[in-house]
């Protein structure tokens, strides 16, 4: 994994793990590597690795059972709210980018609609060509 050394390392790895949980790459109830293992796997300090699990637990996306290890939550609602949260972050980033280009939220909505109808149109022409 490539890190941005100006941002906290724990945050970068935690974000990556959360994305894997949100997309289902890490399934509900899946066992996560131990702290030391996580450290070796990601090439990070063991204290940083411990911090990652602390944060994921605090956010309710992981749980640690003493002696058994850390697991992805089985609570479907927690995963869903994580998905919403990540979608929200992506949206915010997108809007920020567009605002930098001088576009309003209204412009952004128009843009999305046009993109969508373009895609639909392309799909129909594809089908027409095939026929």
């Amino acid at each position, binding site marked *: 994994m490539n*890190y941005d*050394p*100006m*941002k*906290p*390392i*724990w945050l970068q790895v935690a974000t990556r793990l959360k994305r894997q949980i949100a997309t289902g790459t890490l399934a509900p109830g899946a066992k996560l590597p131990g702290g*030391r293992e996580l*450290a*070796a796997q*990601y*090439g*990070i*300090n*063991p*204290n*940083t690795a411990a*911090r990652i699990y602390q944060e994921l637990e605090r956010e309710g996306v992981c749980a640690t059972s003493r002696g058994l290890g850390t697991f992805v939550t089985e609570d479907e609602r927690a995963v869903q709210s994580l998905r919403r949260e990540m979608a929200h972050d992506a949206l915010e980033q997108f809007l920020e980018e567009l605002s930098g280009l001088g576009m309003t939220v209204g412009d952004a909505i128009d843009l999305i609609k046009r993109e969508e109808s373009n895609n639909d149109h392309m799909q129909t022409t594809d089908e027409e060509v095939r026929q």
Partner: protein
Amino acid sequence: MITCRQLTKKYGSKAAVDAVDLTLEPGHVYAMMGPNGSGKTTWMKMAAGLVRSTGGEILYNGKPIGVESRRHVAYMSTEPYFYNWMTARDVGKYYQDFFDDFSMEKYEKLLQRMDLDIAAKVRTLSSGMMAKLKIAVTMARDAKVYMLDEPFNGIDLLARDEIRTCILEEAAADKVMVLSSHLVEEMETIADWAVFLKNGRLVEMRDLEQMRSTDHVSMADRYREIYGHTEG
């Protein structure tokens, strides 16, 4: 675990380490940072009990560094210290004679994991393999303090990855790890504290994750701020 107060080492009138106050606690990986000549190696050699201080004091668990502490401190120097005729196995035996806490079993495991042949002669090793051998023989000790001087120097990316993994697997709550390097990027993610030395003096000691959160700077940025723009 290691405390130094006003620690000084002078060679003639030149101070290699100059009035350094520092405390290193178990459970952390410290990056000793600074360009050549900043005092990293001299500091490590004093902590390893190989060089005597000329002023101040350096303590291991409250006692002066000496015969007792040397049993708990594993130090890897930058100089090559094996004979060319030795095989990797001979290097292990040599260490076994020297150190009670050396485990041949652990050594063999480390060699195997880093893809080194125990029958290989030191003479035939590339610089990357030599670096790995030095790490393996140092980490095969069951010490409380590991000090590695320039573990990443002059070796390829893959060997660096292997060495990094080996260091991280050995880092534990009851151990102190001290790594020196002028390859700053290599140290960013594995260390949790950075010790910046300049002209033998301690500039500062920083919690790296905290520094990233509060100041939004990397260790490399801080390095540039401390050592850039001025003479040596």
